[in-house]
């Protein structure tokens, strides 16, 4: 009998990886001491490609764009998880250690993403304090507001933007919460104490199941336990059948506005954090969407990040689906030791479409672009920057997820690594050494289509107390095919 038990136990251990017994081993769970080493040879790319360093010493960079003359611009966010505030900036990169400050912002970051259109730069101002905005920045530094008042003061912010050939400016608006219910995890993020009445706003009217979560009052307001439901402030739970009115702008949406301003229009809904936007083959809009976390009042386990071909007008599943699979479908999204997430919506607008690809759980799939001509290779494929996991805050992982650039054949959903750190295991350079990638957050081809620029946010450590970002560790990389420039 002991031999039998030992055999079964050992087999189960081999097969299951002992998820519940093993500690989290996220890529950011490492102690980092500046300065950051930067060595292009530590980054592996397919045969025939090479990696160069364009700029170092950036603080929380998030996006890259090119003007008509081919000059390179980068956004610095001005805010990082960990509640660290700096000055949001747009920089023109003049050399490896030389740049010109084009524009600066106020304490309302993060400035996410960047695009150049019709002679000006466009920035998504995350809006952690004052709400999200889309900004128009002229090359001589004049900053104008295209749209403001976006619901952006929660977990996720205003992202993008990207100009379409139809004359509209498309951008993503993330959700306030992980999975629809405000909870103690939002107090950990920092915003719930600033905005105790904040909650997600649906794009369309929604009828609620009445699902609610009860727990100790994270705000310590002397209320004892509080009950919170979907699309409601912390400590408020609406009864079953309640209808929450939709509004635009809303959370978890792809929206659009004219570059000179005007009314915001809804493009599609049901995303969680549509961070990266890019137009692919046949001018189809694609979105990289950060999937659910295993945290907070409604944890979801095992939900991969999603690459969507956006279906205009359609609902894409948040907060009750991951891709086209319902969160209460079997045991697919059950956190270990917990119950399956129960639906929040009494009626779903439709069955969500199937995503173009499923990426790693907690990979934080962010900025992306598509290879265009034959010069770079892989024409028509998406190149997605994976920021990397923020375990254990987002949930446990057995090893680092992300911290690389992947390419995706959007016709088949097949994902392949394109730029990774060398070593016996995957992970950021701060964990595995070598001086390679830390946290890729944007990938964009230059106007010629021959060089892929990768924005690397820099070192973001994760501790029991939260995120620990390190200033001046951001890098802009360039990947080219063939002979060095």
């Amino acid at each position, binding site marked *: 009998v002991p*031999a*039998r038990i*030992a*055999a*079964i136990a*050992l*087999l*189960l*251990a*081999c*097969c*299951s*990886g*002992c*998820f*519940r017994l093993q500690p989290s*081993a996220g890529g950011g769970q490492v102690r980092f001491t500046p300065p950051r080493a930067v060595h292009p040879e530590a980054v*592996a*790319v*397919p*045969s025939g490609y090479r990696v160069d360093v364009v700029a170092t010493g950036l603080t929380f960079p998030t996006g890259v764009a090119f003007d008509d003359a081919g000059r390179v611009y980068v956004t610095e966010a001005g805010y990082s998880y960990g509640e660290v505030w700096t000055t949001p900036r747009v920089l023109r990169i003049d050399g490896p250690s030389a740049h010109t400050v084009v524009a600066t912002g106020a304490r309302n970051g993060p400035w996410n993403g960047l695009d150049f259109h019709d002679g000006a730069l466009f920035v998504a101002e995350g809006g952690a304090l004052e709400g999200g905005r889309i900004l128009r920045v002229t090359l001589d530094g004049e900053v104008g507001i295209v749209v403001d008042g976006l619901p952006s003061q929660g977990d996720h912010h205003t992202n993008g933007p990207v100009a379409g050939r139809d004359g509209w400016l498309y951008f993503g608006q993330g959700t306030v919460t992980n999975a629809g219910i405000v909870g103690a995890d939002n107090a950990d993020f920092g915003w719930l104490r600033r905005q105790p009445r904040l909650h997600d706003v649906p794009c369309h009217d929604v009828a609620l199941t009445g699902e609610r979560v009860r727990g100790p009052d994270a705000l310590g307001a002397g209320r004892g336990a509080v009950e919170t439901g979907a699309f409601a402030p912390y400590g408020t739970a609406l009864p079953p059948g309640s209808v929450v009115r939709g509004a635009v702008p809303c959370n978890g949406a792809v929206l659009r506005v004219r570059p000179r301003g005007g009314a915001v229009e809804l493009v599609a809904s049901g995303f969680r954090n549509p961070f990266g936007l890019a137009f692919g083959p046949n001018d189809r809009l694609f979105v990289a969407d950060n999937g659910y976390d295993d945290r907070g009042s409604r944890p979801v*386990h*095992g*939900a*991969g*990040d999603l690459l969507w071909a956006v279906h205009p007008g359609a609902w894409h599943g948040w907060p009750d689906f991951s891709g086209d699979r319902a969160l209460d479908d*079997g*045991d*697919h999204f*059950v956190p*270990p030791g917990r119950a399956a997430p129960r639906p929040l919506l009494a009626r779903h607008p439709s069955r969500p479409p199937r995503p173009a*690809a*499923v*990426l*790693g*759980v*907690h*990979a934080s799939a962010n900025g992306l672009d598509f290879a265009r001509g034959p010069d770079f290779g892989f024409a028509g494929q998406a190149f997605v920057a994976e920021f990397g996991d923020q375990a254990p805050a987002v*949930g*446990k*992982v*057995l*090893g680092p*997820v992300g911290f690389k650039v992947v390419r995706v054949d959007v016709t*088949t*959903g*097949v*994902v*392949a*690594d*394109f*730029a*990774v750190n*060398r*070593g*016996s*295991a*995957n992970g950021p350079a701060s964990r595995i050494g070598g001086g390679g990638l830390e946290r890729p957050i944007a990938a964009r081809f230059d106007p010629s289509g021959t060089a892929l620029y990768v924005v690397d946010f820099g070192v973001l450590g994760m501790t029991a107390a939260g995120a620990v970002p390190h200033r001046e560790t951001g890098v802009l990389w360039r990947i080219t095919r063939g002979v060095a420039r």
Partner: protein
Amino acid sequence: MTGRTAGALVVLASALVVASCGSARRSEPLVGAWRPSNAETAQGERVFMAHCHACHPGGETGLGPSLNDKPLPAFLVRLQIRNGLGAMPAFAPDELPDGDLQALVAYLRARRSSGRGG
């Protein structure tokens, strides 16, 4: 289960543990491009991407354990996929038909035996 069978399982499991010490990395930048050699592994690759890649990115460690360095017999792989184990969910025939499962197992075997990186 006889004592001899249990002993064999212990040996098998121990061998798996030892075999798991190799690198699970199969990244194209590290080991070169991998292409499906036949229609079955091509189908298996698509199935893997739809159902497995999220937790085992590229067959490496992620949310779940690595697969590329686990020489499990095909019957155990099928058993685990159909029934789930630990934190891994079960995949029923209505979402993963037998043909897809067979192709997936062929794909996993092909990737396991392809070049190792690091």
